[in-house]
């Protein structure tokens, strides 16, 4: 997916000779976009330094997106006068300036004022840059820290090594830990899941990456029959300390076989722990906890969260307990229960309702198995109403389970039927408009809340 794109502010047709005659022939190099969906990206590396002479076609920098690294070429010859986006800068908006190229023969100082202005327009102030972290970085840090801590931890999956990870989660791990511990597997989900189980039986701590949990269906036999059941079948003699991780759930416009949410499948199975974080801090703390856990853990990430930034602790031993939900937002009127990407939707819905004086409590489940029923029951005892949000299918879903448990354990606390907002009961469609309708939205949650509150839509 190596794509080369270069953007410039000056008209493309400007010939070099005339450009030299212009009073201000400075060229901005702009942040490129790989896809129409891409809003921002990271500046991974500068290959040229300020003051370097560059020719048209020279590669200036590498820009990283959710999916690939792009090389940014110089469209014009000149001097790389100023770098505006420092190496490592995150969330640089598409089409914002990342560098300035000045013609060779112009005094270097001429566009400085312009540059200073452009620098102020950068989306990330330096302070924020230190305190915030993307989910992708959080996962990468968790892996690297656990690999440094325990020599038995290794990563295996498709494209995790040489390619630096299909979603860049394993970026840099091969360079630090070598091919012995960062293992590029063939496209053999069934057997490499089994291989992971065997390595775990021998006492290693495998982290098996699925490029998508949609592909983990090929490995379902080893996940269920080998990983989940062995402790029980052996009467407690043999445990399987393994993590299966990767993106699960919706992705933009990839159709039915790459975008389904299988949370409920895994949450159904005794012998597994199932984790689905929303924030970067939880992603890091839960992945570290999962790697240290003596049981098999299914770690469900979300492609739409990888590039999202959250405040994150820098503590090396930031662990988050598996099995503990988090009350993300307190409220007295209604309880929203969500996990993974849907937590963001629930929070937005809560903000919208708050403008009308309705205060929703938002619970981020974080772990789907074991389920933190105490937190759920405590909240519903307070609010008396509950909306459960998930991307997965409604039948036999996480919402169906929680709804049944609330009926069994909190019947007298409920002032309205428990509502579910789920993915539509169809395979994921490709067409943009249909895909949008197949997934839960903020508006769906608001509508479900209004119904549970017996308010007019």
């Amino acid at each position, binding site marked *: 997916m190596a794509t080369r794109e270069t953007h410039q502010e000056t008209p493309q047709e400007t010939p070099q000779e005339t450009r030299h005659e212009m009073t201000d022939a400075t060229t901005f190099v702009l942040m490129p976009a790989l896809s129409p969906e891409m809003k921002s990206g990271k500046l991974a590396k500068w290959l040229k330094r300020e003051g370097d002479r560059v020719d048209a076609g020279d590669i200036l920098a590498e820009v990283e997106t959710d999916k690939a690294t792009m090389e940014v070429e110089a469209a014009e010859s000149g001097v790389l006068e100023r770098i505006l986006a420092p190496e490592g800068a995150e969330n640089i908006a598409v089409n914002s300036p990342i560098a300035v190229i000045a013609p060779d023969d112009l005094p270097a100082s001429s566009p400085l004022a312009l540059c200073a202005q452009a620098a102020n327009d950068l989306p990330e102030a330096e302070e924020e840059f230190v305190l915030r972290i993307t989910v992708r970085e959080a996962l990468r840090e968790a892996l690297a820290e656990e690999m440094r801590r325990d020599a038995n931890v290794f990563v295996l999956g498709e494209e995790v090594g040489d390619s630096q990870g299909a979603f860049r989660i394993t970026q840099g791990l091969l360079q630090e830990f070598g091919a012995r511990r960062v293992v590029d597997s*063939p496209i053999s989900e069934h057997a490499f899941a*089994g291989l992971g189980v065997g390595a775990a039986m*021998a006492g290693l701590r495998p982290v098996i990456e699925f490029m998508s949990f949609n592909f983990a269906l090929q490995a379902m036999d080893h996940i269920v029959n080998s990983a989940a059941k062995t402790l029980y079948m052996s009467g407690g003699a043999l445990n399987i300390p393994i993590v299966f991780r990767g993106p699960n759930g919706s992705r933009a416009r990839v159709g039915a076989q790459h975008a389904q949410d299988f949370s409920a499948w895994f949450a159904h199975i005794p012998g597994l722990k199932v984790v689905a974080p929303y924030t970067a801090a939880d992603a890091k703390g839960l992945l570290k906890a999962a790697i240290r856990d003596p049981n098999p853990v299914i770690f469900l990430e979300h492609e739409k969260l990888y590039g999202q930034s959250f405040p994150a602790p820098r503590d090396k031993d930031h662990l988050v307990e598996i099995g503990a939900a988090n009350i993300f937002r307190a409220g007295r009127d209604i309880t929203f229960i969500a996990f993974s990407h849907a937590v963001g939707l629930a929070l937005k819905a809560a903000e919208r309702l708050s403008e009308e004086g309705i205060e929703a409590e938002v619970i981020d489940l974080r772990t789907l198995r074991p389920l933190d029923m105490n937190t759920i029951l405590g909240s519903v005892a307070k609010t008396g109403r509950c909306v459960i949000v998930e991307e997965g299918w409604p039948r036999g879903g996480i919402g169906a389970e929680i709804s049944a448990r609330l009926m069994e354990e909190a019947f007298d606390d409920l002032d309205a039927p428990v509502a579910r907002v789920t993915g539509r009961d169809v395979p994921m469609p490709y067409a943009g408009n249909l895909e949008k309708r197949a997934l839960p939205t903020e508006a769906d949650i608001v509508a479900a809340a209004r119904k549970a509150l017996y308010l007019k839509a």
Partner: protein
Amino acid sequence: MAAANPAPPESGNVRLAAFLGDGDDVSIYRAMLLIRRFEEKAGQLFGMGLIGGFCHLYIGQEAIVVGMRLAARESDQFIASYRHHGQLLACGADPRAVMAEMTGRRGGLSAGKGGSMHMFAPECDYYGGHGIVGAQASIGAGLAFANAYRGDGRVCVCFFGDGAADQGQIAETFNMAARWRLPIVFVIENNRAQPSGAGRPGHLARRGAAFDIPGETIDGMSVEAVREAGARAIERARSGGGPTVLEMRTERYRGHSLADPAKYRRKDETRASQAPDPIERLREKILSSGLADDDHLKRLDAQVRSIVAEAAEYAAHSPEPDAADLDTDVLI
């Protein structure tokens, strides 16, 4: 990735030492006889209703696991299918615990929760006991991966049948094992019971050819032939040469499981005359070479029968699991 250090630690498995004895023909005879008598007893207990569900007997195939056990070091790992009572005994698992697992008792190797197909003895480096056909191949490759990762010189010996050889994960596993030169020996126990025709002579030894995995077809009814070929393949794996496929031509005398009357096999097919019984064969060799006399072998048989009888007695009288055990061992 390759196994480096060729000197693995030995852990001192007393029962395994007793099982193998001095490794001479008489000890080997006794080892195979123990498996044979154990399986005969299991068949009886199944008939009496003490063993439920499935019970896959190893009768006729004893030379394979005993030969491989003789070829391997104590710390090498074994992994097998559901037809694995022979593997358990050959790795040094307690015959009483194995039999009590089949009867579903608290004293069973898996505390009564696994059954005949699901037993593990990690303290003896035995890793199951897998009920899903072919699962042990990729799991076994994982054990071998760990050996290469640690460079501890251990080798995994992985048993599966001609039926399992048709599973897709076998090809996936061969690919990874060859690519990473994993220290593993794939022992295909070709009892020609698989109706698809996978068990045609010499056919399975070539299954690894596309991955440059060498293969050999071995007379699996000869413990000496198995031991020799096993030793070569294990040494190759230990020295970093990667995997080998050993196709063992063998014969099991009973149906697939005791719930299977083996009606699909013709009567003349169930006991092919050209394949002499491995235990009978060794007995004749011992007697004709004068290594031991008939009385000595009879005493051995009595000794083996008493071990098996004790196991059956234990299995019949060990209490059932506590009701509270139902919910334990799901997670640690």
